[in-house]
């Protein structure tokens, strides 16, 4: 089978799953400095699927694309430590403040610039936004078919891929033509670890940074100005505190609690 050009879309995200007390400022905004920046978990699952495709089809290349500030080049390097061949960092002040649509415009511009890919793989969603929108939007902008919620690649043949994907309450097997864009679920295989030799060889590798001009993008469609959605306001979460009845774990207290719940028809 002929070798494939594979792209991985990955994002550096604040680790929102481990939010400590100092993660929020007093005014309800986020203290980003207090949160470690990590490789978005489902993008790791996507990277693994890309590397498996490369294993299945020798001679293939894997290219990582990410967008963010300078330090997001760590994402490209991390990918390269695990087996990706190269990568690009999209970084420009004009990209800042992008919603999902402006983000997918930027990524699709970069994918076009880097050449035509046979398979583009990304995580289903990023943990800082949980929107799951960028994958399908990139597919639309490139005019590619999409398969989302992918759990496993079942077969790869000339010009065709067969996948298992999660659906509500079950799974389905889908056949799609190449080129195609896939988004990968967290339930897919975990990513292989770093390869020590690759780390040695690439830890000082230069990551190519691309600006809006470098990818021939229209500045009006990038960043805040290219985003149809606007944030009207952001609130910290507060729940209406209730007056609660308190009791201990004594037999007496539990008995009277159960009695009360039966009497007021909550249970029984």
């Amino acid at each position, binding site marked *: 089978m002929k070798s494939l050009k594979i792209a991985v879309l990955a994002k550096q995200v604040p680790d*929102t*799953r481990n*939010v400590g007390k100092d993660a929020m400022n007093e005014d309800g905004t*986020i203290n980003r400095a207090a949160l470690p920046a990590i490789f978005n978990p489902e993008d790791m699952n996507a990277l693994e699927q890309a590397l498996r495709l490369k294993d299945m089809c020798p001679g293939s290349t894997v290219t990582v694309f990410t967008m963010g500030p300078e330090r997001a080049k760590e994402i490209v390097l991390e990918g390269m430590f695990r087996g990706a061949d190269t990568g690009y960092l999209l970084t420009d002040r004009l990209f800042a403040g992008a*919603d999902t649509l402006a983000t*997918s415009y930027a990524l699709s511009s970069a994918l076009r610039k880097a050449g035509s890919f046979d398979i583009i793989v990304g995580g289903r969603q990023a*943990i*800082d*936004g*949980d*929107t*799951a*929108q960028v994958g*399908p*939007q990139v*597919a*639309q902008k490139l005019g590619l*078919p*999409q398969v989302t*919620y992918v759990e496993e690649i079942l077969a790869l043949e000339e010009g065709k891929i*067969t996948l298992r994907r999660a*659906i*509500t*309450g*079950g*799974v*389905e*097997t*889908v*056949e799609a*033509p190449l080129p195609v864009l896939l988004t990968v679920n967290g339930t897919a295989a975990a990513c292989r670890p770093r390869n020590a030799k690759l780390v040695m060889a690439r830890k000082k590798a230069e990551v190519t940074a691309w600006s809006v001009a470098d990818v021939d993008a229209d500045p009006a469609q990038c960043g805040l100005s290219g985003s*149809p*959605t*606007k*944030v*009207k306001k952001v*609130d*910290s*979460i507060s*729940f209406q*505190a*209730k007056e*609660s*009845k*308190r*009791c*201990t*774990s004594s*037999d007496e*207290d*539990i*008995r009277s*609690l*159960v*009695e009360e*719940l*039966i009497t007021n028809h*909550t*249970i*029984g």
Partner: protein
Amino acid sequence: MDNIFVYCEITEGRNVAPVSLELLTKGRSLADRLGCALEAVAIGSGLEGIEADLYPYGVDRVHVFDDAALFPYTTAPHAAIITKLFTEEKPQIALMGATVIGRDLGPRVSSSLHSGLTADCTSLEIGEYEDKKSGKVYENLLYQIRPAFGGNIIATIVNPDNRPQMATVREGVMKREIRDAAYKGELVRHDVSKYIAPEDLLVRVIERHVEKPSHHLDTANIIVAGGYGMGSREGFDKLFELAKLLHGEVGATRAAVDAGFCDHDRQIGQTGLTVRPKLYIACGISGQIQHIAGMKESGIIISVNSDPDAPINSIADYVVTGRVEDVIPKLIAHYKNLTK
């Protein structure tokens, strides 16, 4: 033009997904507020008579696209139909379920139409917006309110200039209510061949397995939920015993699921199920906001926790301070005794 559209998801056995009916209820109240009509779109196969399931929610017009190629769902034909229909009809608001289908279809359509889409909204309201830069004031915009940043903040999003204003909402977040059993709308059966091209059918579903859900958390009146504080799978066995006794269901927090104490499909919270039972018994649950987001609409909340200052206690009606290992068996024993 300027109406509200709801994409109605068709499930196995030609049923309308519960989330779509919930969105019709929300769509109806938004339409009343804005003085416009509510329209529903049903895309699938064998949809004869589907309009009768939709009108009672106050639907003024039902668009039906009925063709063997349209079920089971694949992205391209559904996206092509919705994109063309929205281009013709110019809705001001479009709503979809934040399901596997809605989250696959919504972004594809929003990219085609270059209209903003907000995922997983927990509240939808109408209000005004002032663009600080231009000073322009927009009336009657859709406030798309959603948790962001892993559920640590709540953001209100608007789409000032682009239409439709699109949003997805998870199942269970909105209430479902029949408007009028005798409500009559208009049926429009569309010619599918005018909307899809042969190349839209290149992705094919070869095989599907959909299982009946192993629980009924979505409709349960009583939920006994456990957190990381349950300590083990065996700890959860006690919760199943209590739930069975009360004719309820067992739910879990993400921490308990991640620790392997309980199966993933029972996870309640922002990235799991949203529930609103009559009674919610939270056992060994500290009350992270991500969890509370999925259960705060419960009628009565009981918290059983050894920590008297557990955050969940502030929204609980009853707080039992004690070890779950002591309290759960006592609840079981006293309930048995008192209902003998």
